[in-house]
């Protein structure tokens, strides 16, 4: 092993110190930037409305609000859902759909008279029960878990649904 000469040693020290500085500052910055990836996804049930607000056989647009939104979030803390009342009571009482088309996420639009959901982006069509009636969607509309508590309808919060889920 040849002994380190003075200049090689000083060069290495300089490079090492520079890397150290970048690391020291970089770790907290990267940690802060990537934090959203490691945050637990929203969970738990939030209230939608009174059960009585939903007439039998009707599909209705509702919105729920993020439970702890950032103060400046404005309307982005809201999420829209399509709620379909199927029966008077029981486990088949409701179907709750995310508004996002399963193709690329655009909001689907309920045509009450024709009883279909139409997507404005690429023309995806779904029947009232969320199954695909035509167009590019690869799967039925994403559904949310729901439960009835007293006279209220609650739905489970969830991240933006993507094609990989479900």
């Amino acid at each position, binding site marked *: 092993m040849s002994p380190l000469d003075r200049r090689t040693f000083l060069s290495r020290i300089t490079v090492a110190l520079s890397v150290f500085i970048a690391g020291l500052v970089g770790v907290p910055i990267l940690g802060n930037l*990537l934090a*959203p*990836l490691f*945050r637990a*996804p*929203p969970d738990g049930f939030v209230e939608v409305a009174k059960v009585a607000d939903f007439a039998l056989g009707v599909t209705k*647009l509702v*919105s729920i609000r*993020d439970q702890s*939104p*950032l*103060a*400046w*979030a*404005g*309307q*982005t*803390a*809201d*999420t*829209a859902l399509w709620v379909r009342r199927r029966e008077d009571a029981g486990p088949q009482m409701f179907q709750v759909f995310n*508004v*996002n088309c399963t*193709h*690329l*996420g*655009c*909001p*689907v*639009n309920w*045509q009450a*008279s*024709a*009883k*279909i959901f*139409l*997507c*404005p*982006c*690429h*023309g995806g*069509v779904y*029947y*009232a029960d969320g199954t695909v*009636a*035509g*167009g*590019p*969607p*690869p799967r039925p509309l994403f559904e949310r878990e729901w439960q009835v508590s007293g006279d209220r309808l609650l739905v489970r919060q*969830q*991240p*933006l649904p*993507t*094609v*990989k889920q479900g």
Partner: protein
Amino acid sequence: MSVLRGIGKIPGQIASWLGERFELEDSVLAVLRHPVPRELERPVGWWYVFGSATLAVFVVQVATGVGLAMTYVPAPNSAYDSLQFISHDATLGAVVRGIHYFGAGAMVVLVLIHMTQVYLFGAFKFPREANWLSGSLLLLAVLAMAFTGQLLRWDQDAFWSIVVAAEQAAQAPLIGDWLAHLVVAGANVGGATLTRFYATHVFLIPAATFGLIGIHLYLVVKRGISEPPVAGVGVDRRTYRRRYEEILGRGIPFWPDAAWRDAAISAVVVVIVVVLAALIGAPALGRPPDPTLVIADPRPDWYFLGYFALLALIPPATEAIVIIGLPLLAFVFLFLVPIFWPDGERHWSRRPVAIAAVALPFIAYASLTVAGLQSPWVPLLEGANLPTSVTAGLEPQAARGAQLFTAKSCWACHQIDGSGGRKGPDLSHVAARLTRERLVARIAGGGGGMPAFAGSLAPQELDDLTTFLFTRK
């Protein structure tokens, strides 16, 4: 008089003092006067101006971007209002925003012209491979700026574009969901999303762009501007540098012998951008962003429309591959160009494959853009109405059918006499094509992209509707 003459000498004295203290003569001025091939004095020199024109528009984008950032509030609850203020109330705000908008389009166009010229002139070959690679990264930066900039408009379409972008990112293998979360900065589009796009658009990508422009210009000066190609005279790696030195030996200084053309074209481009901004202006904002308002038609600005159309037209099963794979393939190809073809023939007339490699994607993308402008696959959600020329004089039952045609959303996807959507077949003369039984079966049972309406049409309604459609011979 001598006093005045003395005052008149002051600017020159200041200039020579600065020149002496900064030693400009052998730094900045020497770089500006670097020799370029003498051929650039001829009309062929007009082909060498597009890089400079892009740089000029980039400076315009930085200046107008800083101006917009003085007023724009990158918070989800205020961004829309601040943009409305810029567009309608701020003094010259609409013009500044218009310049930034048309400047963005000009950047995309000029970068593509510049790259096409460099490619067809074979200027990416030895020893200028790194120029091409740094330029390819700059193309990426320009496209990323164009995309993130559109989202800062923060209207209904911008909001849903972010959702669509996240859904597209989610289609990437393995890291898809991870990418989607990174795009929206959390589990959903929300309070954290807009500030991320803002910081990316005004700090991250511009910082990278400044760095890349530095590298690109350094290489342009170090490697020298390529001589116009001569058919039959290829690049030979053993002899090229010596030959190029001889070319520069009888060359002309870039400043001002060649630079004046760059200035002329830059002026033309910036004048066009400013005139368009003043006359047409930036696109009006759509509805304010509201996730609970499900009427949206998110479509990108014109230079991304072709890609948007592609996603509508390909078979759904291939989407995961096309959304991620096609752009990836295009950029991998760009990066491989100087590595696979570093020497040999430069002149386009002897590189038919190179001409095809430029022409085919351009033609394909132009056709896709036309398709994107027309978007026949989009169902019409608002304004359902048939012209009176169709409804006038109908028997009562057919008239009821005509009402059902709009009420039951047939109109959203089918045209009659030019009114209605174009997703499904034109029904202007449907009775001439189908028997009544086939018509009933198709409406009730659906098929071939058409939903089945048996569940939403009563037997009498189905009868009324077919009676109406049967008047269309």
